[in-house]
């Protein structure tokens, strides 16, 4: 799978915006510095991913979970990130739950139609979804990618 070099970098415009908003008005960022930030950010991602992967493996899991990431961040001493991350995580979970409820609802409506036709039970659709998650299988709602090269 050919990776383009640009795909491995984060968008410079976004990085610059993040920097500018973190600093007082009127501060300029030299071009070389912008590149430095982009590179550092990419390396940070690899660093945290590796640390989180270690946490997951030490718990005999193949899937890196949100908790693994939080633990890894604590392990590498970026503790000041943890509180803001918890806040944002709450929000993210609520959003995900909203999406899941909406798609579960749609599924149930589909099942109801086929129940009318086949006379079968709708069944515990919610539990089936949860079982998939427990088994660590990818579902469209949870694991969103598979890192293994094809």
């Amino acid at each position: 799978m050919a990776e383009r070099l640009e795909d491995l970098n984060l968008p410079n415009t976004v990085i610059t915006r993040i920097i500018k908003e973190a600093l007082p008005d009127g501060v300029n960022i030299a071009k070389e510095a912008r590149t430095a930030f982009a590179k550092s950010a990419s390396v940070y991602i690899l660093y945290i991913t590796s640390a989180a992967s270690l946490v997951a493996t030490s718990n005999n899991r193949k899937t890196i979970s949100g908790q693994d990431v939080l633990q890894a961040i604590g392990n590498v001493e970026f503790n000041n990130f943890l509180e803001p991350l918890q806040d944002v995580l709450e929000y993210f979970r609520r959003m995900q739950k909203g999406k899941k409820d909406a798609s579960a609802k749609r599924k149930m409506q589909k099942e109801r139609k086929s129940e009318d036709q086949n006379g079968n039970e709708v069944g515990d659709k919610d539990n089936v979804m949860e079982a998939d998650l427990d088994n660590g299988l990818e579902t469209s709602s949870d694991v969103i990618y598979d890192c293994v090269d094809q």
Partner: protein
Amino acid sequence: MEGTEGTDNTDHTDDLAGNNWKDHASGKEVGSAQEETEHEEEKSERILRLPLARVKHIMKIDPDVHFASQEAVFLITKSTELFIESLAKEAYTYTTQGKRRTLQKKDVDNAIESADCLAFLEGVLDT
């Protein structure tokens, strides 16, 4: 939400230089949790700036990494934003020390050398 209450006295969200990080604990992104129902749609656009897909791409470089939950990718993306802010503030202390208005690469270099938690970046910017 308990998280947003940590902005008062015992605020331990300090950046690498020990400066107070109240802005982040109260969260520009999270904002006022009380009004969240009104502004939720706006917030859903603002909660993340970096693209999840690109972050995923970078994560894939690690051959030992196979599966990651959505939450994990989300948290890594968000923490990367926090990291950039943190590094920027740290570097900026050197910019002001040099009485400059332009943040230069050497400021980033100095930041990396001065903070223990940034040791993983040593040598990365030398090209």
